[in-house]
């Protein structure tokens, strides 16, 4: 229980700190550019190597899933279709290879 409450407090403090710190200040351009490009870096780092770690028995199933998602999202707008296609591709890889 201490972990749950402690975790909740710590998580909220991390998430709310920038709001308190940024109060009434103007964002310097360098920092704003830095924060704008952050999502791109975050997405790259979130995919890899997490995808390998999530499929310890069969990394290929994860990599194929992500590749299918990337491929599908080149041609289709929206997020549901790539995600569903990736699950199907991973399932197929685990089940039949």
């Amino acid at each position, binding site marked *: 229980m201490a972990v749950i409450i402690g975790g909740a407090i710590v998580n909220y403090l991390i998430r709310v700190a920038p*709001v308190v710190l940024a109060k009434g200040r103007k964002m310097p351009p360098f920092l704003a550019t830095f924060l704008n*490009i952050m999502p791109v*870096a*975050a997405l790259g*780092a979130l995919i890899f190597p997490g995808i390998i770690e999530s499929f310890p028995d069969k990394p290929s199933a994860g990599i194929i899933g992500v590749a299918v998602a990337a491929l599908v999202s080149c041609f289709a707008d929206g997020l549901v279709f790539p995600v569903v296609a990736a699950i199907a591709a991973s399932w197929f890889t685990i089940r039949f290879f």
Partner: protein
Amino acid sequence: MNFFDGDFRRGAASAIPIFIGYFTASTAFGLLARGAGLSGWQSILFSATNLTGAAQFLAINLIASGAFPLEIVFSIFLINLRYFLMTASLLTKVRYKNSLEKYLTAFAVTDEVFSVAMVDGGNVNVRFMAGLQSTSWSGWVLGTVAGFFAGTFLSPALSAAMQVALFALFAALLVPEIKKYRLVAFLTALCAALLNTFFYYVLTFSAGWSLAIAMILASLAATIFLSRQNALKKSPVEREFCNHG
């Protein structure tokens, strides 16, 4: 107009893939939490108040192995330091009207919520965030309930395949960014992935530190590159990235 129309609805619709990904991931969390000896209410409370993926899984592992609560909370802190950067980044994107809106949306900042909000081309205001975050939060909490009480209702192959959902979501968010910003975005993402791999496997940093440092270094490199280019001439790419007015 009603609060739950328009942008709220658009935010909720954007969160459907997150809902799917969260539901499946937190199903696994519910199963593990039960195995580690948490009660149903504790598991749900954990997901509802912490709303974080990797850190909750790590906490369950540590609880099962009998670690001290303080040690576990500190690990949660390290893994989730990245949310600091994400809230800071959202402050430049979301059209907030007052401080209260900022304090409320800060509660449910996650990797996925952040990524979807940042790449959205429409009007990202507090209603959009409310729709996006409440839908994501529901997926995480309902999945925990399902995992704890319903147990194994999926075939092993399917529940393993479901793990790909979150990563597929990341890839589907990244591809349009690369299409839009071309080489700069591609290299930044690649650089972050390589750095994260290096820190995690070679330097054996914890997953949280590794991710946070990789993100910071790759973004910093890209920002320095863009700022230098900016001094020469404004390319469309970095006009977009430097557009924060």
